[in-house]
């Protein structure tokens, strides 16, 4: 008999937590996601696939045929192939760890690469580095897949014909011999601060003084003549700031530097009600990761942020009696835009009250005048030298793409070297780069893969991955880091340094000699061999971080600049603002062919495999509904045409709660025309809308709904949990927390749980073993996890880290639409609001993985004991026993189990893009050959089984790491009984990567461990406690720190104290305070 469990219903009044508009409307589609293990039809063969009946016919025939071939059922002969000569350090089957660093446009990120028998398989942060502290991000984690991308450029080509390295070197020598003073040479590079590169550029400049040097970064910051002097940057010190106001600055997301998230979240680590939290105000046009963790958020079109800053500056100038700032405010005609006066007033008051400990941040996307105005505000708020410190990097100054384009137009460039980048795809619309590039007689391109730029180049040379060459660089704190190769270039690729060395007239480096020369210059070691070895071992040179320079605010120059440049674009009734953003997954499009990144849901919109224009629900109603046939509501995926001057783009929309009205946000990096198998056909290219004068937002766009619809693979409703959102993700405010520190434990249904009347009581988690049992204490461990929702930003780095560690396949867009994505850990994103039509919901992210229930519902229903409990508390999944009934997934209240509907590891997932019967996953499995690309196999973690079709899988708490640690402890114990793993000596992949340190994993039986201590935190709660599943993962409730006087403060962090309602302390307090 099927028993339908009565989960508590959503409260009729009070705050609701919801994942999508569909959930609020309780659409049948959403009910399908919620109530079924998979949505209707997802577990059936469908679409372009063969019907079940035909499938059975085929199967029967194939089985009969297979019977004829039974003679070959002997195990094949396999060989063991040892090295001929022993390799230093190498122990077959044991991983080796090397430090290295990854180039990013904000400096090098120090890393540790894991190599198995010479193959790099996993990237971690460098724990020795003082700023990185072992954390990494989404891009570092997924960069390992780029190394093994089967669509990488593999051959040197000349005018499209494959040739070899010797021919290229000969041609290069010819070019350089005729170069003279270099006036015909042009170089287009990417932002990079490698000192060896700087040194080589110096050498080349001496040889060819007239050469043109240019750098192009499509998503670089808006150039702002700084108010702090030439080349000096003001670096925010988040650990010192009590009140932070971000004006369109996504400092936890797209604009995060190494260690930013760690520094910010350190001030949100609440250990007791007395802990002092920072307060974050965010003004932005769309939800970002930063906006999601904010305490107060104001929706504003990005083009009006400047006007907002001006209004705020007026208040600050008033309060701080800063006449200079007041003069500027007066000098500028304040635009006729009405802002929430209370918001500005109380925000300014809060900032002034925290004078010296506050921080105002302007997004690097905002115009120079706004950035300078914000610097002036910081100066009058006393932040200079305290919450902002100066840093000066000395890099060669380069021309911009526009300047290079002018030189090319003048026909001065005979040979153009393009290293990396992809200007044909991402150059601004006002620079006809493709035509310009074609007009250059010889173009030498170092490119990572076949892209839009390579067909227009004469010579194409494969560019090396950062794990393939010797290099160096500077981290964002300026420390000198080493880039070590983990593997020889897979396809004879050249690094940038190789090419520059050749141009400089040096031989192509065969080893680290070039970097060693730079190292000698920088470190000046007394004993080179030891110093070099230490440099490589640590991954960075000790004490090499750039010393902070004194920060002096040049007030008068700044004021001049603001007065001269400040402008607020006017917006019309029907004119929209278009905002171009860095895609949180694909950056500027360079990771378009990375399947892991394509399939990670966007942290905010939960969109995979495509981009879409985000618009607010009200805009969607206004814009779309009149064009829709019948009574259909506006949906995600409805197409609009965006007309910006003469340029236009047709793109699907996503209805994004919390988005500003009159504004459209489009992530860049999609719609590539020349790209590998993964990226082809994904998304829409917004670069043609973008000009160099308005790189991040443009005003005056016209939008028109086309009436068409595009299918988007959105995961926001997937794996929806029964129970109330507010029970799953719990939050409160500082005052609530102070009033009742353990408020999270009695929220919602948890207040109503009757005492457990079971005849069989489970031993408590922290004392699992009966001390009188035989062999008590022989198995001292018990694993558990704590996730601090107050630190989690929802960045989804844990998802990719898990994918890399646990050999999780990608499944492709069509499969994601069917709800078959395989991520073991997912990031659930909820919006919260009291009124469902409230345009200002809050956002909460919650990572969810297998909860490792002590009374696991999945275990009792497995007919073959394929999922069982271990004595250490793990809910163990035994792949070789699994027969694929999927009962366990059906019975899992957390929906964390994933089923291999296809042989994702052996079949071409990307082949199914046309959804045909004979392609990709839908090939007739028994009659077509299987197999994965060799390079893709090289990435796999050899300590984790690669699962096959028909097998269930889920989070294992990284059991391979647990076993490794246990075996290491036992090997060390030898003939003693001392094999307890030291506390916190290893952790799971998700906990290791977390930039905010939100996930803690460890041995809860060991009172010394961090996780055991966190388990006693009063904010802790467990999910679905009323089901008595007794989970091993627990969460710490999110605490918001609203300013009680701000408008709307009573809505913020409005934890349902209970579903009986009740007045919130803030509401009461704000009534008392005279406004």
């Amino acid at each position, binding site marked *: 008999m099927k028993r339908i469990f009565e989960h508590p219903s959503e409260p009729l009044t009070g705050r609701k937590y919801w994942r999508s508009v569909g959930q609020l409307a309780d659409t049948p589609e959403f009910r399908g996601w919620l109530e079924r293990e998979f949505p209707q039809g997802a577990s059936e063969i469908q679409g372009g696939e063969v019907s079940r009946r035909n499938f059975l016919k085929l199967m029967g025939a194939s089985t009969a045929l297979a019977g004829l071939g039974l003679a070959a059922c002997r*195990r094949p*002969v*396999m*060989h*063991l*192939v*040892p*090295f*001929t*000569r*022993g390799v230093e350090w190498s*122990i*077959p*089957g*044991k991983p080796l760890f090397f430090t290295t660093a990854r180039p990013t446009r904000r400096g090098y990120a120090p890393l540790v690469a894991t190599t198995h028998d010479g193959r790099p398989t996993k990237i971690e942060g460098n724990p020795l580095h003082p700023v990185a502290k072992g954390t990494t991000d989404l891009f570092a984690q997924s960069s390992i897949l780029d190394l093994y991308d089967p669509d990488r450029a593999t051959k040197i080509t000349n005018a499209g014909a494959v040739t070899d390295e010797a021919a290229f070197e000969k041609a290069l020598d010819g070019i350089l011999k005729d170069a003279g003073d270099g006036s015909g040479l042009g170089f287009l590079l990417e932002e990079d601060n490698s000192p060896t590169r700087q040194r080589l550029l110096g050498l080349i400049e001496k040889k060819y003084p007239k050469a043109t040097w240019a750098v192009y970064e499509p998503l670089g910051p808006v150039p702002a003549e700084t108010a702090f002097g030439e080349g000096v940057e003001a670096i925010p010190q988040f650990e010192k700031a009590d009140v932070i106001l971000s004006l369109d600055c996504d400092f936890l997301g797209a604009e995060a530097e190494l260690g930013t998230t760690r520094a910010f979240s350190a001030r949100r680590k609440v250990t007791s009600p007395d802990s002092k939290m920072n307060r974050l105000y965010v003004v932005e046009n769309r939800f970002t990761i930063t906006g999601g963790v904010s305490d107060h958020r104001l929706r504003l079109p990005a083009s009006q942020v400047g006007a907002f800053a001006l209004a705020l500056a007026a208040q600050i100038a008033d309060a701080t009696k800063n006449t200079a700032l007041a003069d500027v405010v007066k000098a500028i005609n304040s635009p006729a835009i009405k802002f929430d006066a209370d918001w500005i007033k109380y925000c300014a008051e809060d900032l002034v009250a925290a004078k010296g400990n506050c921080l105002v941040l302007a997004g690097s996307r905002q115009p120079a005048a706004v950035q300078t105005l914000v610097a002036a505000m910081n100066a009058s708020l006393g932040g200079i030298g305290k919450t902002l410190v100066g840093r000066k990097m000395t890099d060669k100054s380069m021309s911009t793409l526009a300047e290079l384009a002018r030189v090319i137009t003048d026909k001065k460039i005979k040979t153009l070297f393009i290293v990396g980048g992809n200007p044909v795809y991402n150059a601004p619309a006002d620079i006809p780069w493709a035509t310009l590039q074609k007009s250059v007689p010889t173009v030498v391109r170092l490119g990572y893969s076949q892209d839009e730029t390579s067909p227009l180049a004469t010579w194409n040379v494969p560019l090396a991955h950062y794990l393939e060459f010797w290099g160096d660089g500077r981290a964002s704190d300026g420390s000198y880091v080493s880039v070590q190769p983990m593997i020889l270039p897979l396809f004879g690729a050249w690094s940038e340094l190789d090419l520059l060395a050749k141009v400089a007239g040096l031989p192509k480096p065969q080893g680290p000699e070039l970097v060693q020369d730079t190292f000698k210059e920088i470190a000046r070691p007394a004993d080179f061999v030891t110093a070099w070895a230490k440099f490589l071992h640590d991954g960075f040179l000790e004490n090499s971080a750039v010393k902070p320079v004194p920060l002096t605010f040049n007030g008068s120059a700044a004021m001049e600049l603001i007065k001269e440049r400040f402008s607020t674009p006017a917006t019309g009734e029907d004119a929209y603002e278009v905002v171009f953003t860095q895609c949180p997954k694909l950056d500027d499009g360079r990771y378009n062919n990375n399947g892991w990144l394509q399939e990670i849901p966007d942290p905010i919109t939960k969109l995979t495999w495509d981009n879409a224009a985000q618009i607010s629900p009200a805009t969607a109603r206004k814009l779309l509904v009149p064009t829709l046939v019948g009574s259909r509501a506006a949906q995600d995926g409805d197409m609009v045409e965006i007309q910006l001057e003469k340029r236009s783009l047709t793109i699907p929309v996503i209805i994004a709660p919390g988005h500003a009205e009159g504004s459209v946000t489009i992530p860049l990096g999609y719609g590539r025309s020349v790209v590998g198998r993964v990226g082809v056909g994904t998304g829409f290219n917004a670069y043609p809308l973008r000009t160099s004068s308005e790189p991040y937002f443009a005003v005056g766009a016209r939008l028109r709904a086309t009436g068409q619809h595009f299918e988007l693979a959105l995961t926001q409703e997937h794996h929806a949990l029964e129970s109330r959102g507010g029970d799953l993700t719990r939050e409160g405010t500082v005052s609530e927390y102070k009033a009742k520190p353990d408020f999270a434990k009695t929220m919602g249904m948890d207040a109503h749980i009757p005492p457990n009347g079971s005849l069989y009581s489970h031993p408590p988690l922290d004392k699992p073993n009966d001390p009188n049992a035989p*062999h008590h*204490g*022989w*198995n001292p461990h018990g694993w558990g996890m704590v996730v601090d929702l107050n630190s989690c930003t929802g960045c989804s780095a844990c998802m990719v880290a898990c994918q890399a560690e646990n050999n999780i396949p990608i499944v492709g867009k069509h499969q994601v639409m069917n709800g078959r994505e395989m991520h073991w850990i997912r990031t659930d994103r909820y919006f919260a609001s009291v009124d469902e039509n409230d345009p200002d919901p809050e956002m909460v992210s919650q990572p969810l993985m297998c909860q490792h229930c002590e009374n696991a519902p999945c275990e009792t229903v497995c007919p073959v004991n394929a999922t*069982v409990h*271990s*004595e*250490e508390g*793990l809910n*163990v999944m*035994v*792949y*070789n*026993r699994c027969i694929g009934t999927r009962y366990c997934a059906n019975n899992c209240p957390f929906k964390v189990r994933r089923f291999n509907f296809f042989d994702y590891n052996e079949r071409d997932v990307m082949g199914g893009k046309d959804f045909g019967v004979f392609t990709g996953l839908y090939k007739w499995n028994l009659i077509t050959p299987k197999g994965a690309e060799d390079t893709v196999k090289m990435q796999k973690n050899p*300590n*984790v*089984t*690669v699962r096959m079709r028909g097998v269930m899988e889920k989070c*294992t708490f990284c*059991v*391979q790491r*647990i*076993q490794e640690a246990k*075996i290491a402890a*036992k*090997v060390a*114990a*030898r*003939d*003693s*009984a001392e*094999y307890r793993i030291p506390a916190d000596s290893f952790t799971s992949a998700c906990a290791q990567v977390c930039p905010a340190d939100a996930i803690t994993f460890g041995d809860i039986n060991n009172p010394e461990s961090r996780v055991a201590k966190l388990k006693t935190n009063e904010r802790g709660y467990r999910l679905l406690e009323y089901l008595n599943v007794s989970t091993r993962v627990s969460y710490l409730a999110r605490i918001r720190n609203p300013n009680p006087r701000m408008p709307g403060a009573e809505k913020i962090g409005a934890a349902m104290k209970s579903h009986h309602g009740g007045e919130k302390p803030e509401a009461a307090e704000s009534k008392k305070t005279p406004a």
Partner: protein
Amino acid sequence: MANIFPRGSNILPIKIVIILVVLGNAVSAGMWYYFTPKYTRVGYQPAQPVPFPHDVHVGQLGMDCRYCHSFVEVAAHSNIPTTQVCMNCHSQIQRDNPKLAPVRDSWATGQPVEWVQIHKTSDFVFFNHSAHVNRGVSCVSCHGKVNEMAVVYHDKPHSMDWCLDCHRAPEGALRPLKEITNLNWQPEQEDPQAFIAAYGKPVGSEGRDFSKPKERLTQEEIGSTLRDKWHINPPDKNCAGCHR
């Protein structure tokens, strides 16, 4: 109406049932016997590119297992020696032996010798040598008396059932760590006095007087003592011990 079927056909259904039962049992028994590693794997003795005689190297010359399988104590894999290890001696001894031609070729060309794999676990099984040899399990327990094999063969079934026999009762395989690579070790050879001095009174030896010269230790006693002393708790119910 006359009977269509003869009288004898009444017993036919019973006969069919009996035949089916007998046949079914025979098939089950046959599969039980012929389709399990005890039959399919034990005795597997492929020809190797070099007929390396373990009996000569270990049995006669007395080389230790770990001279060639050098990482067995630190890694999951017990490595096959590199050509370099062979050449340590064979650059001077038996330099012209034609059987060693593949080794010399390998050394000259850098191409490895391709040994035929005999012992193999499935892809979903993660066996770790170091966890066994450091905790009292000898090579001989799983590989047999390799020191007496002229050509190595598969001696034990290596089926999951066989693994679990030992994981459930490890005392049957434990021995003092110094005897791990001594494949000829027998429990009777252990000096009871020295053993008692090192590990205390053997478990389960109540009523026995080891001061008598004839009184020898049994495997059961040695194993149980070491298990309790070292807290040997191999994963017997925790599937994740071997399947990850």
